[in-house]
Every structure is written in structure tokens, then in C-alpha cells.
């Protein structure tokens, strides 16, 4: 069975600083990987996804993530954080093929300070 680890429960960054949120996965085959964001009082919004191909994927809101098979990682990055990026971020892994039943990580809560 697949699993996801997000080692950072809480991260604080200054507005304008760069951001990297870590995600490690465990899956026996090529994974499908996702990053979602949950703002307070909201559902989850898909930021980006990796299915195959280019290992650097671009998402919405200026986010990108890089798939590194050798490290079983799919870290999320943003070069310059905005106050509106304060939210909780979830990494998720899906099984290849079929309808995407995914497993979510425990989430990383991002605080942005002025």
C-alpha cells in the first residue's frame, strides 16, 4: 500500500521569501503525485499533479514541484511567498491506473509573516 510522509507539521516563512515543503512517498511502482492546498474554512484545491514525463511540474499560484524517484520525494516550491499562501498543504499519492484513490499526507501548515 502507498503512503506519504510530510515531515514538517508547521512552517513559518517571511513574505517574499522562498518556500519548500517536503513530501516523501512510498509506492512500489511509478506513483501519481499531487499537492493540494486547504485554506481556512475551504475544501481542498489541486495545486499540481505529476503523472509522468517532465519531473518538474508547474502548478497554479506560482507553485512548482519536482519528482525525484531516487529520493522518493515530491517537494513543493515557490520562489516568493505571498501572505495569501498561508494555508495547509497536503501531499498525496495515487495508484497508477484506474480511478484515483489517493492517500494523503498529514499536511504542513504554512504561516506567512510580514
Amino acid at each position, binding site marked *: 500500500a502507498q503512503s506519504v510522509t510530510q515531515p514538517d507539521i508547521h512552517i513559518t516563512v517571511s513574505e517574499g521569501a522562498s518556500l519548500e515543503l517536503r513530501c516523501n512517498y512510498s509506492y512500489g511502482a511509478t506513483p501519481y503525485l499531487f499537492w493540494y492546498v486547504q485554506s481556512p474554512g475551504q475544501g*481542498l484545491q489541486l495545486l499540481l499533479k505529476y503523472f509522468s514525463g517532465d519531473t518538474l511540474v508547474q502548478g497554479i499560484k506560482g507553485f512548482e514541484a519536482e519528482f525525484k524517484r531516487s529520493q522518493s520525494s515530491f517537494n513543493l516550491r515557490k520562489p516568493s511567498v505571498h501572505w495569501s499562501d498561508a494555508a495547509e498543504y497536503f501531499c498525496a499519492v*495515487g495508484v497508477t491506473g484506474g*480511478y484515483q484513490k*489517493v492517500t494523503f499526507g498529514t499536511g504542513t501548515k504554512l504561516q506567512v509573516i510580514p
Partner: protein
Amino acid sequence: SAVISQKPSRDICQRGTSLTIQCQVDSQVTMMFWYRQQPGQSLTLIATANQGSEATYESGFVIDKFPISRPNLTFSTLTVSNMSPEDSSIYLCSVTPGINQPQHFGDGTRLSIL
């Protein structure tokens, strides 16, 4: 992407009662998913609902407690039965539009049990 509407958005219920949560999608989808997000926690899949068949429940979740209906390709309901304070959570509906497609989420139902 699909637009997903959940009702109610929040509710406060008495112990021992039941609540039915509705999930409406603006397009036909094959698979719908129901998740629970306990306070400060990640998402846990309750069940997968495929139109025309019984829902498939994950370990730890049973039909008597969380009956699900899926009468057509755009609608599903989740009932939380005989509620206790431990059922206080956010319940989220999601859909996947096709094979190897990511899930998209509604805004969730915030449920508090007194």
C-alpha cells in the same frame, strides 16, 4: 474542472441524531469519494461511491454508521448516523472525472456534535 456543491456547509447536531450530507456535481462523474477530516488531522477516506453499485467502505468505516447513496452520475449523499461528539469533523466529497485524473473537492461540511 468539475464544480462540486456540498450541503449543508456546516451544522450543529445533537448526540444520537443523524445528518445527511449532499454532494452535487455539475457534470457526470463515475467515481465519488467521501472523506472525513478530524480536527487538525489529514483526510481519511470513508468510502468510494460508484453509480449503480454499493459503496466500498474503507477499514474502520461501516455502512450502518455511514450509509451512502449514489442514485445517479451527478449526486451522492452521506449519512452520519447516531452521532456522537467523536463524529465532529469536516466531511468532504470529491470526484474524479476519469481514469488517471486527480480528485476535485467540494468545500466540505463542518459538523459539530453536542
